[in-house]
C-alpha cells in the first residue's frame, strides 16, 4: 500500500495507564523506565527528525525525558500524556538546534524552480531516498516540514515553537517542500509512474 493511503497515528497518542502516570508523578524510577520504554521510539524518531543529528537527538531525548520526570506533577491530564511528552521533546529538540545555531542563518535559495507539472517525487521515492533527502534539508525547513506534515502542528503553533512569525513557518514549509522535490527528482526521473498499478489511485 502506498504511504499516501495510510493515516499513521503517531505513537505519542498511545494510551497510558493512569496508575503508571501516578507512579511516574510520584518519582518512581521503575515507572519512569516504563514510560521511557513506551515512548522511546516515538520520542527518538521525533528528536532525530527535528535535529537531523544522532548526537543532538540523544541530548534532546534525554533532556526531554528528564524534564518530563522532574516536572511530572505539572501534567494535569487535560490532554493525552503522550502529547504532553511530545511537547517537551519538540521544545528540547528545537532548543538544541538553537544552542548549536544550526538553523538560524540558513536560507534556501528562492530562485530555484521545479517542474510543477511533474508528479511529486516522494510518491515514487523509497523510504531510504526520502530519508536521505530529508536529512539534506536545512534544519529549520526539515523541522517545519516534520512538525506540519507528521505531527500535525499548525503554522501558528510552529511559529510559537520557533519564536518566529507564521510567515516564517509558511515560507520554510514551501521552500522545504520545493527543495525536497529537487533533491528527490534526479533519483526518480527514470522511474516509471506507478499510476495504473493497483497500489494507488
Amino acid at each position: 500500500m502506498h504511504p499516501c493511503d495510510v493515516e499513521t497515528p503517531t505513537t505519542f497518542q498511545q494510551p497510558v495507564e493512569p496508575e503508571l502516570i501516578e507512579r511516574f508523578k510520584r518519582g518512581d524510577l521503575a515507572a519512569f523506565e516504563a514510560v521511557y520504554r513506551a515512548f522511546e521510539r516515538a520520542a527518538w524518531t521525533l528528536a532525530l527528525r527535528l535535529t537531523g543529528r544522532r548526537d543532538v537527538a540523544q541530548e534532546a531525548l534525554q533532556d526531554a525525558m528528564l524534564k518530563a520526570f522532574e516536572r511530572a506533577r505539572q501534567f494535569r491530564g487535560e490532554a493525552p500524556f503522550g502529547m504532553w511528552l511530545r511537547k517537551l521533546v519538540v521544545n528540547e529538540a528545537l532548543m538544541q538546534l538553537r544552542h548549536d545555531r544550526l538553523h538560524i542563518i540558513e536560507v534556501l535559495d528562492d530562485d530555484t524552480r521545479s517542474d510543477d507539472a511533474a508528479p511529486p517525487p516522494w510518491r515514487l521515492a523509497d523510504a531510504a531516498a526520502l530519508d536521505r533527502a530529508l536529512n539534506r534539508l536545512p534544519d529549520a525547513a526539515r523541522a517545519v516540514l516534520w512538525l506540519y506534515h507528521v505531527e500535525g502542528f499548525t503554522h501558528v503553533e510552529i511559529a510559537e515553537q520557533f519564536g518566529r512569525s507564521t510567515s516564517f513557518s509558511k515560507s520554510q514549509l514551501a521552500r522545504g517542500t520545493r527543495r525536497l522535490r529537487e533533491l528527490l527528482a534526479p533519483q526518480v526521473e527514470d522511474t516509471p509512474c506507478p499510476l495504473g498499478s493497483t497500489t494507488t489511485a
Partner: protein
Amino acid sequence: MSTRLDHHGLNEDATLAAALRGLPAETPPTDAWAQLATRTRRRRSTRRILWTGLPAALAAGIALFVAWPHVTLRHDVPAPARAAQSSSPAQASPNGAAPATELAALQSSSAQWQAWVQNLDRNGAPLDGRALAGAVTLQDRIGLIDLQLSAARNPATTADLWQQRITLLQQLGLLHLQPYLVADQTPPNHTKTL
C-alpha cells in the same frame, strides 16, 4: 501551503504528509535508558545534597556577610603602613597574625564555594541559554580576579579580591540552582499544560 493537485489529481500536501508518515520509526541507541537512569540517579543525589547542604551554605554566606565589616575594619590601615608591616617579619608578628588567619579563612571559604559550584556544574540541571551566558560572564570575572590575585602584594587588596571571588562563586552557584527553584516554585496556575 499550496493545495495544488499533481497530474494524477492528488493533493501535493497529502502525498508528502503520507510519504513522511510512512517513514519507519527509528530506534534509539541501546544504552540510552542506562545513561538516562544514571543521570536521573545522579541528579536526585545532587538534589538531596543541595537541599541538605544549601541551608548550611547560605548560613555560612550570611555569617560571612555579617562578619565582613569587622574583618575589613582590621585592614583600615593606610596601604603604605601595611606594606611596611608585611615587609617586616618582626612587625608582622603581632599585627599580621590576624590578617593571615583571615586570609586563610577566606581562601578556605573560597575553596568550599568553588567545590560546591563545581559539583553543581557537573551534576546539576543544564543551564538554559541566558543562564549559560551569565555563568560564562561570572567565570570570566573569577578568572580576572585570579589573575589579580596572582599579582596582588597588598594584604588588604588580597583579602578584598578573595572576598570578591567568594561573592562571584555564590552568584554562580545560585545561577545553577535556578532551574530547581523555578521547577519547585512554579505556582500551579502558571503551569503550562496541554
